[in-house]
């Protein structure tokens, strides 16, 4: 079962604005880019061509792992606005 299949079990209410952001210059200098593998929802992907971090914030599980794992403390992490984001039917 791949990550997209796992995420497809979830209900989301997508906001038009991201609740997550990074400073791409810092990401460019970041060797490990931990967020690109540690995020359990595969939210972060480094775009080598454009030198920007693609953030699929709409898939976020709101766990907070990326913010704690980031070596350069470069992830601005908020909860999504009330009524937006993931909804767990079991939990």
């Amino acid at each position, binding site marked *: *079962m*791949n*990550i997209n*299949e*796992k*995420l497809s*079990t*979830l209900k989301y209410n997508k906001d038009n604005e991201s609740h997550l952001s990074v400073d791409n210059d810092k990401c460019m200098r970041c060797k*490990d880019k*931990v967020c690109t*593998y*540690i995020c*359990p*929802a*595969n939210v972060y992907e480094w775009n080598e061509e454009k030198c920007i971090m693609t953030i699929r914030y709409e898939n976020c*599980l*709101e*766990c*907070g*792992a990326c*913010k*704690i*794992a980031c070596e350069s*403390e470069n992830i601005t*992490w*908020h*909860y999504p*606005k*009330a*009524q937006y*984001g*993931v*909804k*767990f*039917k*079991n*939990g």
Partner: protein
Amino acid sequence: MSNKNKTEVIVVGAGPAGVSAAITLARSGKEVLLVERGDFAGDKNVFGGTIYTEQTAEIFPEFWKTAPIERAVSSQKIFMLTDNSSVQFEYKYEGEANAYTVYRSKWDKWCVLQAQKEGAFFAPKTLVKELILDNGKVVGIDTGMEKFYSDIVIIADGVNSLLAKQLGLRNKIKDKDVSLSVKEVIKLPKEKIEDRFLINENTGAGCKILGGPLKDMMALGFMYTNKDTISLGFSAGIDDLKKHKIIPYELLEQLKNHPSILPYIKNGVTVEYSSHLIPEGGFNSIPKIYDNRVMIAGDAAMLVNNVHFEGTNLAMLSGRLAAETAIDALNRQDFSASVLSDYYKKLQNSIVMKDLETHKNTIDVLRKNIHALTSLYPEFACEFFDILTSADSIPKKVKYNNFMKKFIKHKGISSSFPLLVYVLEKCIKK
């Protein structure tokens, strides 16, 4: 509430800590506003897991008669995995259950309903942007749209507690002090679950999984039975996930497909995937949990005993003790840090701080011996059973000798025996 936007106590977060605080206050006739960012209580909440009977019943007497519980845990199992084999221990018991499996979406909703019945005001869909400060003292909450004021704020906003951080009560969380947990809820016919876990119609199993795909990390797998689903997942230290460059959902797949785990979930359908952080730094990572007009409870205060897999019980107890302190402060109309410091004393006299202090160094000892615990112990246990049970042409004496030689050769394992002694001593002392 007399004034629309002013109340005696605001509790932020309707998880186990927050709801326990709110209902305790309401029962005492105090005005309490419980705010929650989810559409309803439980909407955003995730755990392993189980709730524990004693601390839950202290808040909700005889909850098992009416609350939406899944199964009463009557079997505890430990799996020690190698890459392709396992040794399993099971402890089964009759009588009153010590723990129950629940779905947070149903359970938390029920708890809040009880608090509302007792007089607590509940405001869902309310995300607190920040605390309102007056001369450095907390006087209320700001949602960005509205402001609410109170004499006391109880912060129970979970492991990421942005509010405790705002107050500077919490430092940046170290990655070794937090575990990332991922989980799937896997649906199967009720009877299949009961047959596979050897449980009855209402009883359930809780399983802890060591080693195998989770070896050489501060990681633990788990399986819990609900009525017609199995919750299967693992948690692992963020530092270890980084060190081994682990992709959590891929590791979860490896765990699901381990030959000793797969038969339990075979032909099941995953109905939900989730992730959550667990504060696992223990005693040494607990922040200052009170100040003028404010207290912190539950995961926000890092109150988790990961050696015994306890969290929801400590959350409920800490929420209740914070509320009892608030009641006293309201009666005295004194909300100063010196009065609220009573909350910390109450925690110290309870199992919360007693147990966390007992294990304040255990995690470091476990961490130091993690290779032995998660690789060598399972390997030797499996090899021991293999020697005991397999018939072939090799003389037993040769097998015993090889086993002992290997055992002694592994400095890791012989030097890690003090680990068991240490943990046992800790539990026997006091």
